[in-house]
């Protein structure tokens, strides 16, 4: 019950602070329009690179362009949503260095919610929009044998993928309590992760695929669900039920990330640095 109360408090604080940031951004409308378009274009260039590759070949790792676009869309939307919701957490290191985290600690709201909402930027919708467009295009081109299960899996996959990336962001922020200057490490897992998932699993080495399936389970963001929907074999032997596992994996990821965050904050409050 206390946990639920804290969650509600956190969501409330998040909404209040995010709202303030939206109003702040609107003070510079032209810049907002530019950066939103920039966010859209950034991801667009990503996809242009894939299209350029397909201008030279018909398939990559055995996957066609619409199939890769399907992977791309799922990954980009999941990551885009996570980035929109808590993407600014990588600024925690800066707050630690200049001591402004203290100002958040004297407010009656969970610190995680306050840090997550810090610099909330609607412009990140650009990435989500671009991902959705690619996903839509892919779905229109693919000849999927839709079943009720597959249809249900789609929204579940996007939400679970978003949660998995959120866990990565939170864990990355927790790491910054240890190494304030090393915020770039998390880019390897966030931006690196979403880039990795844009390509078919068949492209990568077995060890890498194993790592991404069992250690840092990014594969559940799109690879496994996409293989199931498209009726393609996954490069690793896995039992059939894993198809429904993304929500479970998301929960399993969020728990240690939350614990890491708590440990990080506790260490900050005992060391002051």
């Amino acid at each position, binding site marked *: 019950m206390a946990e639920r109360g804290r969650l509600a408090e956190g969501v409330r604080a998040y909404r209040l602070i995010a709202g303030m940031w939206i109003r702040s951004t609107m003070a*510079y409308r*032209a*810049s*907002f*329009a*530019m*950066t939103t*378009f*920039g*966010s859209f*274009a*950034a991801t667009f*260039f*990503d996809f*242009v*690179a894939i299209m*350029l*590759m397909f*201008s*030279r*070949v018909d*398939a*990559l*790792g055995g996957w066609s362009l619409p199939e890769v676009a399907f992977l791309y869309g799922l990954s980009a939307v999941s990551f885009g949503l996570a980035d929109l919701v808590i993407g600014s957490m990588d600024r925690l290191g800066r707050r630690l260095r200049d001591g402004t985290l203290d100002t958040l600690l004297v407010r009656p709201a969970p610190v995680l919610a306050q840090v997550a909402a810090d610099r909330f930027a609607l412009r990140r919708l650009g990435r989500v929009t671009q991902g959705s467009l690619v996903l839509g295009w892919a779905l229109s081109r693919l000849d999927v044998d839709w079943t009720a299960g597959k249809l249900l899996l789609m929204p579940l996959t996007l939400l679970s993928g978003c949660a998995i990336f959120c866990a990565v962001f939170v864990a990355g922020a927790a790491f910054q309590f240890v*190494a*304030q*200057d*090393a*915020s*770039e*490490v998390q*880019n*390897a*897992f966030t931006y*690196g992760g979403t*880039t*990795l998932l844009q*390509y078919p699993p*068949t*492209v*990568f*080495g077995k060890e*890498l695929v194993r790592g991404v399936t069992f250690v840092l389970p990014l594969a559940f963001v799109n690879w496994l669900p996409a293989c199931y929907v498209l009726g393609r074999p996954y490069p690793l032997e896995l039992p059939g039920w894993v198809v429904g596992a993304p929500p479970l994996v998301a929960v399993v990821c969020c728990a240690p990330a939350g614990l890491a965050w708590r440990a990080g904050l506790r260490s900050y409050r005992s060391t002051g640095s």
Partner: protein
Amino acid sequence: MGAGRLYATVALGGFRRYATYRAATAAGVFTNTVFGLILVYTYRALWDLKPHLGGYDQAQAITYVWLGQAFLSTLAISGGGVEDELMERIRTGDVAIDLYRPADLQLWWLAADLGRAFFQLLGRGVVPFVFGALVFPAYLPADAGRWAAFLVAVVLAMLVGFGLRYLVALSAFWLLDGTGMTQMTWLLGYFCSGMLLPLNVFPGALGTVVRALPWSSLLQAPADILLGHGDPLRTYLFQGAWAVVLLGAGRLLQSAATRRVVVQGG
């Protein structure tokens, strides 16, 4: 002579300053290595199907990937050079102080950026490159002359890179909040420098256009020399021409900006 020593000191300062951020450097090395890994696999898939795509063989494509990772921060291809600080100084008005220094604004920042670039090359560039060369079957020329020619192209690339970013930085004199503008420039730079895909893989007219743009001096030009694809002299001429044009444009913009500062009284 005295001026030369001044700028050498500034450059050394730039080098030292970036050298103090050890954790950040280690983090950067790690991230560049991860991105290199991802790209290498995708390039291999591509070159498996088209073994001579863009005139490279697979080993050369692998070398290209790790060169890209080594150059990303060295040449600050998508930002992250001294221009951040310069823009901050322009916004806060501190640049007025710089203008009264007995040193040229552009040369001062160029020296600082070169210092930074050399540190990033050694601190952030070498490790991912060596990692990539050891773990994957990369192409490495045995000819020392080729490496020397390559390094000359890298230095020219540093000049062109600074020339581009200096122009972006000076835009802060006119734009109150230039976040959008700079973000767009970095994206364009990332795409047009060949960070995503070598420019000689770009098809048709698009390929011709991107290869003529200044960004191709950054990664593509030095890479082609190392991979034995470009005539060094012609490449230097291309890079040098862009360096002169961009730095010259920087000077023009700088004097316009200076007049503005003087008129407004800082």
